[in-house]
């Protein structure tokens, strides 16, 4: 699997995700600068976490207008898979590749801690190594992760099985107790309609080694390798 990781001014988890990909694939991903609208063809595009453009104006708003994102949009419509994490999730929703938006956390503070996620669907490129209903422990680190969509959009993504992960209690109960940011319907990650684009707030790239936060994020990358190699 050949992956591209985008780099915007202010990206800061691009190294983390590049290392996760390298650990799983034994192959370094291509790092693509935000001004590069003509980067080489890859099997996967990753939009990483960070504070692109300082989160000024609105998280992800400026990055969504960059030359590289115009090309990502074009390739995404052709079916190239896109994994968007944290600030990347904010960027791709701003770019219109995923439904909904990420608002300021309900408690108004940055939150960094492990959360529990319930896998809503194993039927995707990104989640095929998980079981539906499986509970994962993966960290979050964000101030704007409060997922919101209007009622029609929410109904549509629920009906079409576009919710990838929900925040839950350690035992898998989805009742709001495990929700770190006030996200609507405890949504932590969503797919586009064709399930070729996935955005999520938690950081699977920081959960790939047992000594460093656990391994629950690793199957996500392993599943991608299997699907895309």
């Amino acid at each position, binding site marked *: 699997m050949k992956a591209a990781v985008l780099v915007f*001014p*202010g990206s*800061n*988890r691009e*190294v*983390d995700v590049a*290392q*996760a990909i*390298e*650990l799983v694939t034994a192959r370094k991903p291509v790092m693509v600068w935000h001004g590069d609208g003509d980067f080489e063809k890859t099997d996967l595009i990753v939009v990483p976490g*960070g*504070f692109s*453009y*300082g*989160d*000024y104006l609105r998280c992800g708003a400026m990055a969504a207008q960059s030359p590289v994102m115009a090309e990502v949009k074009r390739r995404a419509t052709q079916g190239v898979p896109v994994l968007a994490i944290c600030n990347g999730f904010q960027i791709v929703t701003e770019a219109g590749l995923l439904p909904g938006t990420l608002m300021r956390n309900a408690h108004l*503070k*940055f*939150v*960094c*801690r492990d959360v529990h996620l319930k896998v809503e669907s194993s039927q995707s490129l990104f989640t095929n190594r998980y079981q539906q209903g499986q509970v994962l422990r993966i*960290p979050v*680190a964000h*101030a704007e992760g409060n997922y919101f969509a209007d009622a029609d959009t929410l109904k549509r993504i629920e009906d079409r099985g576009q919710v990838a992960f929900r925040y839950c209690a350690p035992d898998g109960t989805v009742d709001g107790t495990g929700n770190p940011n006030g996200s609507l319907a405890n949504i932590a990650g969503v797919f586009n309609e064709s399930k070729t684009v996935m955005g999520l707030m938690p*950081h699977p*790239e*920081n959960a*790939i*080694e047992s*000594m*460093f*936060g656990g391994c629950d994020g690793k199957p996500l990358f392993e599943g991608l390798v299997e699907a895309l190699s």
Partner: protein
Amino acid sequence: MSVAVERNPPVRLPNEPSITPEIVAEHGLSPDEYQRVLAIMGRTPTMVELGIFSAMWSEHCSYKSSKIWLKKLPTTAPWVIQGPGENAGVIDIGDGQAAIFKMESHNHPSYIEPYQGAATGVGGILRDVFTMGARPIANLNALRFGDPKHPKTRHLVSGVVAGIGGYGNCMGIPTVGGETNFHPAYNGNILVNAMTVGIAPTNRIFYAAAAGVGNPLVYVGSKTGRDGIHGATMSSAEFNEDSESKRPTVQVGDPFVEKLLLEACLELMATDAIVAIQDMGAAGLTSSSFEMAAKGGLGVVVELDKVPMRETGMNPYELMLSESQERMLIVLKPGREELARRIFEKWELDFAVIGRLTDTERMVLSWHGEIVGNIPIPPLVTEAPVYERPWTLTPLPAVLDAAAVPAPKDWRASLLALMSCPDLASKAWIWNQYDHLIMGNTAIRPQDGDAALVRVPPDGSHIGHKGLAVTSDCTPRYVQAHPETGGRQAVAEAWRNITAVGARPLAVTDNMNFGNPQKPEIMGQFAGAIMGMAEACKVLDFPVVSGNVSLYNETEGRPILPTPTIGAVGVIDDIAKAVGSRLTQSGLGIVLIGQTTGWLGQSLYLREACGREEGAPPPVDLVVERRNGNFVRAQIAAGQIKACHDLSDGGLLVALAEMCIAGSTGVEIAMPAGQTAPPHAFLYGEDQGRYLVAAGSPDEILDAAAAAGVPAMLLGYSGGPSLTVKGVLSLELRDIKAAHEAWLPAYMNATD
């Protein structure tokens, strides 16, 4: 510009006021110091020259009250590459890698404007570390706030924490450790001490000393505005009721720009273009250009009209004294300007050649072709005021007899009260606002061990076995009671905390926060603390490689507790062998290492349960400290220990409770036979040099301890849902945990 022109006296600018005694006083210079200025200059200085003297001779930049004492600290060891005097200290951690680190205060700005004050404190210390060529890999912070009941405290905690998080999170550097205390002595003067640790190859470390006459002087980063003018002078004065009006002297940070600056500097550092580099911190362009030239024994011409400016109408005085953030000064090799310009323009940062090096040993400032400042550099250093201020040592208070301290009437309530008191309550509310996991190298997270532990990535690749243990420590109530003991204890505790995770303690950075040095008793606190620290650093082979002094921490004449914060770094060769303090397994033997006499003087129990702050602090026997620590570290390396926690605030019972709730495993222990101290002294006393370890084969530890002459006793075993001390108390862990975790969020969410 010819040398002859450079020696010309400067012109006075239109509108420039005449120098009066009032203006001199406003610049924080004493009449004596102004006489020195006149002697050096041989004439009346211009305003910009006066401003430069004021900044360079401020306590903050010149260390004029502390210098003679700081010399007493040991600063060398075979692994020390660079001791105090550079932007940060540098130590060799093996495999061609160096750890570069420093701690610095931002106390006054954080009190005046907590968010920006704390944020720019983090920004400043990060620049100190990456200006030397290091990629920062860990941040820590040591915070001291006033009484939680004081009307400003909640606002200050909220703003400082948000500011530290706001800056560090955006920079993408994990904030992995630190400490937060509360005491009424900090009501009018909080402490914000920030520490950064970075990694660089030992053969690619960058220094500030300029070299090469004619080499270009380059300005990069943000534009210069009018913020922070006189910050260094402001932070060298006491607070009074007018301090609020000093808000405009606080700088405003932009972590996004600093992130770009970090990446651009590291990219340039990977080339061979740089001769010297220095960040613009306190006193901005003045101290950076001055220090670079002084360290290189050279002169410098600065064309101030070339400085990128954020505002129109700025004058030379403002440009030289602005403390606008996210700026660097670089001396480039000749002909490398275009290479460097391309890198900084790629990162959308300002880049301007603003001057060049000369052989005149003078700092010459020009403004649209006219000389506006012309100062000889060496005398500003050699003739700088140095004070041996009168000092009176604090006498050692009488030792408090443990029998004279009442035992708790209700043991369970006493433990719950201690675990939920402001100093011991969980600080998760704070560190959950800091990204402590970014970079994916955090092996021991906040609260999971005595020191935080991060993996050292070799050359940016992912697989590594080495870890750095980092901690910050000080027990101000001990230092207040007896500065020598307190200084010794702060170093010893930092050493112990590094040891408790299995790492080898290597070196420290010290952040000396004290009151007004012109008071003999305050200067005596400083002197005493230094004596204690020096002795501990020497015996423990733990040199000081960098540091910062913050004096005049007083408001309305009331000083803070003397607070020499020690930031420490240690290394563990195989990170997989490290241990945290979480008790996660049943059936482990709980072994107490070290001697317990039941020392209650200055203990947290005495303060929290009895409302008394008195007696001598616990003595620190450094030879015993080293022996016990070396034993524990060896046992960890041998794989004998599953969890380890040092004993400090609150003593044995608090340490045990912390281990239990962190790992959700209970214990049952018994008071050891032959123990002469009363139970509350044994369980809450704060004797030094002690550890609790959990081991699968406790007998082997006891045998090894006996062989090494280290006191050790088996207290009981882990297991069950409760913490039980037979015949004394039993508490369910969930009750302890609830009390421990509830206080800070409840306090911060309260609206009274």
